[in-house]
């Protein structure tokens, strides 16, 4: 389900790229076997050595001209056109996006914003199926690259620059993606999920996301433990954007940008010592007493 | 029979003497200048890259255009020095020691004057703009600084050649050192022309 394969496209764009790959692959296989066959014939046909033959062979030179220049030129020009023909499918300009989501790459998680940044979530992008969605990316720190292979090509996430890629899923599903530009120690654990769902479910999800969390004992524990120094929960008094947003955390599938599955046990492990699980990430080991950890887990998992 | 004549006869049936091509030292210096020239080309390309990536005016953020007069005088001085260098070089090619010494001396003094003005220019510009101001400032000072470093190297080279010239080391036949110093100096002058056009003139267009 959480496949990250370029060969299982779930959108028109990814399909176009996969088609291009198969063309390139077939041509390559043919060329490869022709060359290897010639090589084997050349080496095995007339072995034996002896005095060097110093004649110049007109036929051999003609062979070089045809096989080494003319044929490759024809092949390469055809492939060039095949590649150019695929370009519009993967370019943001060619699409009429009906919705925009802003994604900010951070060391080492993804900040996701809906409705001109009024709704914030992290490490999960929900999109409606069959609707072209423009993903606008930028970075607050170093260069990342947003890559969800089943939906589209990757797009580099560069500070000081906003770039776009279009996600237009043609089937519902959860598509895993990952940072594809080296961005520091935890580059390997900077994944995200794109959840494509039917429009009505998506709308329900978005409406739910817009709701602030109710004030509760859990919220004050969250603030009291120091979590809110970095993490925001909509409705909480303090809104730090340093760490991932935790509003509606109970609905998320993973912890630590795809590092762990979101279960109460794993969450407790994570809070106990995030540095053991994702060494070098920016969340310190707080050394909280066990009951406080359990209370936090209960609270966070209740945020639906 | 000399070895060269021997080898020439062995490979070349005609009696015509082969034309002398450039020597190893000449090639070495030309390649040095080629790679250093590329270095400046890359620096100036970076300057224009940043310029065209910057929206709004150039220089950015209301920094005034660089003043022309002093830079113009500097460029003229340095260009003039290359003519003296040429006089020195063509002088020794005809065996004229005096032309060599005087030409080198004049070129050296003009180069020194340029360096003085460059320091003055740097001090004046630095009142408004430093390398830490922004990318424009960094590029401006990096380009001019790199040029000054090459200029100083050129002056040292010229001083060395100059001293040797006083001792009469060079002759009509043997003056590779002068030739090499000259190539390097023309390069330093050419870079200054490129800098003047790029850093001083183009912001006004």
């Amino acid at each position, binding site marked *: 389900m959480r496949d990250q394969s370029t060969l299982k496209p779930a959108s028109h764009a990814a399909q176009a790229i996969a088609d291009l790959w198969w063309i390139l692959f077939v041509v390559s296989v043919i060329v490869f076997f022709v060359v290897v066959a010639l090589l084997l014939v050349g080496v095995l046909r007339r072995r034996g050595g002896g005095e060097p033959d110093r004649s110049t062979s007109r036929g051999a030179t003609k062979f070089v001209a045809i096989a080494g220049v003319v044929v490759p030129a024809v092949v390469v020009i055809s492939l060039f056109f095949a590649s150019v023909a*695929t370009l519009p499918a993967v370019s943001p300009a060619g699409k009429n996006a009906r919705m925009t989501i802003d994604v900010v790459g951070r060391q080492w998680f993804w900040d996701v914003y809906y409705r001109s940044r009024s709704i914030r979530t992290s490490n999960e992008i929900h999109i409606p199926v069959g609707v072209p969605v423009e993903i606008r990316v930028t970075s607050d720190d170093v260069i990342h690259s947003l890559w969800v*292979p089943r939906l589209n090509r990757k797009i580099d996430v560069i500070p*000081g620059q906003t770039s776009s890629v279009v996600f237009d899923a043609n089937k519902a599903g959860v598509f895993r993606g990952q940072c594809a530009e080296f961005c520091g120690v935890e580059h390997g654990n900077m994944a995200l999920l794109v959840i494509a769902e039917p429009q009505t479910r998506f709308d329900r999800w978005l409406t739910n996301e817009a709701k602030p969390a109710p004030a509760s004992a859990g919220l004050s524990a969250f603030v009291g433990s120091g979590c809110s120094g970095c993490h925001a929960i909509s409705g909480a008094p303090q809104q730090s954007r340093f760490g991932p947003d935790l509003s509606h955390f109970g609905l998320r599938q993973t912890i630590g940008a795809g590092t762990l599955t979101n279960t109460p046990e794993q969450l407790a492990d994570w809070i106990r010592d995030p540095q053991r699980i994702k060494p070098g990430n920016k969340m310190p080991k707080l050394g909280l007493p066990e009951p406080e950890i359990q209370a936090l887990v209960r609270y966070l998992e209740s945020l639906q | 029979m000399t070895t060269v004549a021997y080898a020439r006869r062995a490979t070349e049936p005609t009696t015509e003497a082969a034309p002398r091509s450039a020597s190893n030292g000449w090639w070495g210096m030309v390649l040095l200048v080629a790679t250093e020239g590329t270095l400046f080309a890359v620096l100036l390309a970076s300057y224009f890259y940043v310029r065209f990536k910057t929206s709004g005016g150039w220089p950015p953020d209301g920094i005034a255009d660089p003043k022309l007069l002093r830079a113009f005088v500097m460029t003229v001085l340095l260009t003039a020095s290359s003519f003296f260098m040429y006089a020195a070089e063509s002088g020794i090619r005809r065996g004229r020691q005096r032309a060599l010494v005087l030409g080198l001396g004049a070129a050296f003094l003009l180069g020194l004057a340029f360096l003085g003005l460059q320091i003055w220019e740097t001090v004046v510009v630095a009142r408004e703009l430093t390398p830490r101001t922004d990318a424009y400032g960094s590029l401006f000072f990096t380009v001019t600084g790199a040029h000054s470093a090459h200029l100083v190297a050129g002056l040292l080279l010229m001083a060395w050649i100059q001293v040797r010239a006083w001792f009469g080391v060079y002759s009509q036949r043997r003056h590779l050192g002068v030739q090499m110093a000259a190539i390097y100096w023309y390069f330093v002058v050419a870079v200054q022309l490129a800098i003047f056009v790029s850093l001083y003139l183009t912001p006004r267009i």
Partner: protein
Amino acid sequence: MEAHVERLEKVWAEPAGIVSFLTSVDHKRIGIRYLFTAFAFFVAAGIEALVMRAQLARPREGLVSPETFDQLFSLHGTTMIFLFVTPMLSGFGNYLVPLMIGARDMAFPRLNALSYWIFLASGLFIYSSVPFGLAPNDGWFNYVPLSEKAFTPDKNIDFYALGLIFITISTTAGAANFIVTIFKLRAPGMSINRMPLFCWAVLATSFAVIFALPSLTVANTMLELERNWGFHFFQPAHGGDPLLWQHLFWIFGHPDVYIIFLPAIGIVSSVVPVFSRRSIVGYEWLALATVLTGIVGFGVWVHHMFATGLPQISMTFFSAASFMIVIPSGIQIFAWLATMLTGRPVLKTPFLYVLGFVVVFVIGGLTGVMFAAVPFDQQTTDSYFVVAHFHYVLFGGAVFPIFAGVHYWFPKMSGRMYHELAGQVSFWLVFVGFNLTFFPMHVSGLLGMPRRVYTYPSGLGWDAYNLLSTIGSGVLAAGILVIVLNVLWSLRRGAPALSDPWGGNTLEWSTSSPPPHFNFPVIPIVRSADPNWDLEDRRQDALRLERGELLLVDGHQTLATTVLEGEAEEELHMPSESIWPFVLALAFSVVFFGLLLHLYGVATLGCILVAGSIAGWHRPQRELQDQ
């Protein structure tokens, strides 16, 4: 005749001992030093690779920390590119170019010694970071802003940036030396269209070095100024642009691929005709293809940046240029094939490595074509597919030929034969191990595995391919170990080699194995592109030696010829041994360590030492020799 040779022995002899070790300017000794030093770095980079493969053998393995892993892959790439392949090929060039063109040394022997010492010093400079745990850690292309002080505050990046600026001095000086040597020191009669193809390759490479390396120097200088002096070039908040680094880096970086690859191609073009027992087919085509590759290599750098969101029109242009580079490669492949097809091949180890090269390189070339297709590139760049691709091109395209060259020229360099069976065993281990290591990476890349990750979760279909890769890396390492053992064993026990064990076509095979200090007792006169197959000409050389003609025995002498026609022009007096290159390299080291440690007083002192060493170098009566 004896008297002449004795005279040459005396003139060219270098005194024994440590002093001679530091002062030698013999291109053969320097060449062999290059080979050994570069190989030592290769072993280091190989160990780094094996540790990485062990870490990636299974998902969520905890063998090394992410911080260590980052240093491993950064060092591995930097070492392989700058400290192994480039200097290894410089080593072959140093040893072979003068021998192939019938000269007695390089054009600037002392500069040559300097190139080696600076290579060694800069390599040690970069590796001195390892004991402190401060090795470069942002990858070999070291993108900003990650490599800026805000994100990598320690000295890791300073080791990288200063080290690369440092080694550039060596590479550039070496390139200039090669160009002048090839232009000016060819034996009389060796017009440029009779020059060995290896020399064409070295020539094209050297020009690429002259024009590509300044871009790397500028980029790293800017980075150092930004990191340590508060300059701004790459920060958008201060009017800079992070993509400027990428442009500068790849304007250097893509030509550098060909800087690595072209001399290796030259080795292939040397081996193919000799073991096919026939003159190479399409000499002119091959020479032209070599030069074209060097030139077109400068026009394709943007294909490393297709995912950065550049305008489509510029991507289309660079895509077309990248497709075009297939043509010269096609010429080369089919010229070699035609030579084999019309020859009578002999399957010895060097030739096996060349055949392995063709197979592997064709795969790397084909995946290279795929990356010219913009949408495919945007999908698979920075994935394991690209890791597979460039190992097929660089390991396949450069290291296989290097191993071919090691076996091919081993008898010439050592005077002994390597063990043929061990050689063939090593080939099969390397060939199988290589493909087992890198072929599965194509698949894991297509399955979405990004490069430079220190670990990965299970369940994405990557596990088996990674395990296969790790197993393959062990096999590959075993093959390389066999090569090392074969070399060490053969150096002492190998059968004595004749001067021409393969029936070679180029001039290095016309002199003894190993060659005397002066290379050739008499300067050869050349009348074809396969001079060592011109038996009559070589007999004439021997006769001239008897008659005492064209000997050049008065000091370190060789013959200068014209650039294109190779007509004799003048006798050159080459400088003899000198300690100054070594001293100058030490002085440069003082400068760079001063800059690294922010000891600017020390750095200034170093600059004074550099100036002093240059003055000392030129102090003696050099004017006569310069001319």
